[in-house]
């Protein structure tokens, strides 16, 4: 069965790489008699000039392959080839095309000039991955000790997506997320102390304790939330991208080139707001990247039970933007794709939709018994742990030494412990803080014609009746 599937789909070497395995080890897509999404090597070029214009390097859909996992397993992480397959090149296409047979060959250890990261970048990426993982593990501990409460959604396993995208952004760029936002906050630069305090509900948190786990905001770092309603962050990110365009075109600020990234999950990709924003983003050529963290599960609802066409990347071309699928457990592949998408947005060519195949190692939230996911599936993804494979990549290619990585591990442990101590020692918000920050305008009576808050005008009385 496996052999015939491989030959039919034309080149997939290892079904270990296929995330569509059902519990019985057979490809779900094959069961449903539709062609395997893993393989789309011959991408259907579609009439894209209308949408993309003549200057775009994309002349049709780009698709990224999870390819290049060598036969027999992905543990060693060897043969990390370029994950990006750009479209059937038209004129002016500068994207490279890797054909299926190339992807299939096991790749030798990368030569120095083919390395995808420098040593410094590698260390930065590793540190961010470790920060995300260690922080989330500490959150679980703190939750079970009663220091954290309410809804806490952990990001373990998905770190490659956050690090891969956000580490390429500038401070002025914007990120919106869903309730699974701790690691997006950390990657964007919000100090671990502030995030941990916010989770403990202390006044030193990034939102003064008024937001909580699901509502991380940081104006300084361009983190526009933390939204409990999935799909809510997408229009907000679209609006932030719109601001960049507005600043350039109306306010004539030529330096405005901030890019916006909206992170959301597979369940969100069925929500109406998502499609509304795909439409508007292409229509107005907004500098936004829609990143789907497809971890296959929306609480207990499997992606395949809820979605008519599970290939989310396909929804991009339907709205006139490139749709890309990437292995979200591999930080380097994500980074490569992110580089292209961010560059595309920054130069004004418009939005991109990127579907990252990833997995959350823990349940939906700390209250989720997580009974519906099969142990085989969990084991499959645990074997593709992004941190383990990146570590192996760094060591195998002699970019770093074990000692350096251990030093980073220790440093991160210290950072997270310090964050917990800081949060523990921080004060709870004082009672009067309950009524603060409802309005930016202190008493909510608006701004007078002289431009000052009305309530600060000693002559401001409430009402004109004579008693």
């Amino acid at each position, binding site marked *: 069965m496996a052999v015939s599937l491989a030959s039919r789909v034309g080149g997939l070497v290892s079904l270990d790489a296929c995330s569509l395995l059902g519990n019985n080890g057979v490809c779900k897509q094959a069961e449903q008699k539709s062609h395997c999404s893993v393989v789309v090597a011959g991408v259907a070029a579609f009439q894209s000039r209308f949408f993309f214009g003549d200057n775009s390097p994309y002349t049709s859909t780009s698709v990224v392959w999870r390819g290049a996992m060598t036969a027999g397993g992905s543990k060693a992480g060897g043969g990390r080839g370029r994950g990006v397959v750009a479209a059937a090149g038209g004129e002016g296409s500068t994207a490279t095309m890797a054909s299926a047979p190339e992807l299939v060959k096991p790749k030798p250890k990368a030569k120095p000039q083919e390395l995808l990261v420098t040593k410094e970048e590698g260390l930065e990426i590793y540190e961010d991955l470790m920060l995300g993982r260690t922080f989330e593990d500490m959150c679980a501990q703190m939750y079970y000790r009663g220091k954290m409460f309410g809804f806490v959604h952990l990001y373990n396993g998905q770190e490659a997506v956050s690090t891969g995208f956000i580490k390429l952004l500038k401070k002025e760029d*914007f990120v*919106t997320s869903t309730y699974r936002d701790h690691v997006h906050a950390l990657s964007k630069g919000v100090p671990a102390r502030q995030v941990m305090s916010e989770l403990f509900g202390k006044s030193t*948190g990034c*939102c*003064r*304790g*008024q*937001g909580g786990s699901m*509502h991380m*905001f940081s*104006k*300084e770092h361009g983190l*526009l*939330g933390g*939204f*409990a*309603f999935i799909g*809510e962050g*997408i*229009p*907000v*990110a*679209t*609006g*932030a*991208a*719109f*601001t960049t365009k*507005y600043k350039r*075109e*109306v*306010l004539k600020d030529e330096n405005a080139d901030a890019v*916006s990234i909206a992170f959301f999950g597979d369940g969100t990709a069925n929500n*109406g*707001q998502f499609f*509304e924003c795909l*439409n*508007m983003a292409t*229509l107005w050529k907004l500098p936004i990247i829609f990143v789907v963290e497809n971890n296959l599960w929306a609480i207990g609802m499997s992606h395949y039970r809820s979605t008519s066409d599970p290939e989310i990347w396909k929804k991009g071309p339907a709205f006139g933007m490139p749709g890309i699928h990437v292995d979200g457990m591999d930080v380097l592949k994500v980074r490569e794709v992110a580089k292209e998408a961010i560059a595309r947005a920054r130069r004004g060519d418009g939005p991109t939709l990127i579907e990252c195949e990833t997995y959350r190692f823990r349940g939906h939230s700390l209250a989720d018994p997580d009974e519906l996911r099969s142990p085989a599936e969990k084991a499959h993804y645990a074997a593709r742990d992004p941190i383990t494979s990146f570590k192996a990549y760094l060591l195998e290619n002699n970019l770093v030494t074990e000692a350096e990585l251990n030093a980073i591990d220790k440093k991160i442990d210290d950072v997270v412990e310090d964050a917990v101590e800081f949060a523990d020692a921080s004060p709870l918000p004082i009672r009067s803080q309950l009524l*603060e*920050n*409802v*309005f*930016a*305008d202190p*008493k*909510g*009576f*608006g*701004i007078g*014609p002289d*431009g000052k808050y*009305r309530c600060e005008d000693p002559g*401001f009385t*409430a*009402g*004109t*009746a*004579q*008693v």
Partner: protein
Amino acid sequence: MMLGVVGRQAGEVGRLIFKRCSNDNAAAMAWVAASKRFMSTTEMNVRDALNSAIDEEMSADSKVFVIGEEVGEYQGAYKVTKGLLQKFGPDRVLDTPITEAGFTGLGVGAAFQGLKPIVEFMTFNFAMQAIDHIINSAAKTNYMSGGTINVPIVFRGPNGAAAGVAAQHSQCFAAWYGQVPGLKVLVPYNAEDARGLLKAAIRDPDPVVFLENEIMYGETFPVSPEVLDPSFTLPIGQAKVEREGKDITITAFSKMVGYALKAADELAKEGISVEVINLRSIRPLDRATINASVRKTSRLVTLEEGWPQHGVGAEICASVVEESFYYLDAPVERICGADVPMPYAANLERLAVPQIEDVIRAVRRACHRSSAEDQREAA
């Protein structure tokens, strides 16, 4: 009065000249503006008041932009944004696809970054598709972010019943939005309110829900030169006593203020002196003015077009009972729309919303001066 006639004639002359030199846009615009100003030193309709407010605020601050369905090329579904596309261009007056949730959220995201969107809903009924963004990402964000991210956005559009538009186009949302901390909710009545409150709303650093009324758009009101000044704004959270009286207080907002004033004229013939309060602001609600008035008159009738349960009148009643209980000489009367989705048939629609006769009857009841007929028809 004479000036008004002359003004109107000048306006017509202006329009003729506009037609003749319609090729010369600048001259034409200047003539129209001049004739408008001359014409409106005494009178202005609510639509023009809103249009001029948006126009002036957009001229004064380049961060202000308008976004909504049909606001640009169609000149506005109710012509409130007429001429703005021609004046400010498509980058600042954006026609959107039919995507309320999407473009409302987009406006909120832009407001997070310091732009000042004016989001137009064709009616506030359609805003229900975007209410998640109005409440969850606009109203609550300043609080959730600990005061670091404020949202200087205005949501505006017609609210409440129109004429014969049936159930899904006739709901009044004042009570819904009025309940939410983090929103300011304004309800203009006449041209002066429309201008002053909208300008205040656009300048305000917080999300403002601006509930207009379609029937009022065409109504003309006298306006003073002070109102026409580009820096004119009205305070948010302050009600206006439209008519002073000593026997009974009627609180009303939007179109119902007109009904209350007409009822007051009728009742004055019977010797009942009615004080009419134009609320202007549902949130913050001007409880001080209302209570001061009730302490003076000892009787209260609340008037609104929306549904009775948990409505604006219920809140005013509670406020008065809490603060001025011992001043009341009669129970508070609430006049509201009928507790049904709006029917289509014209005679049923008339029964489903308050009419001037209902106001008069309720005032008489509250003043204990009703005939048996009034008692029987207590709605």
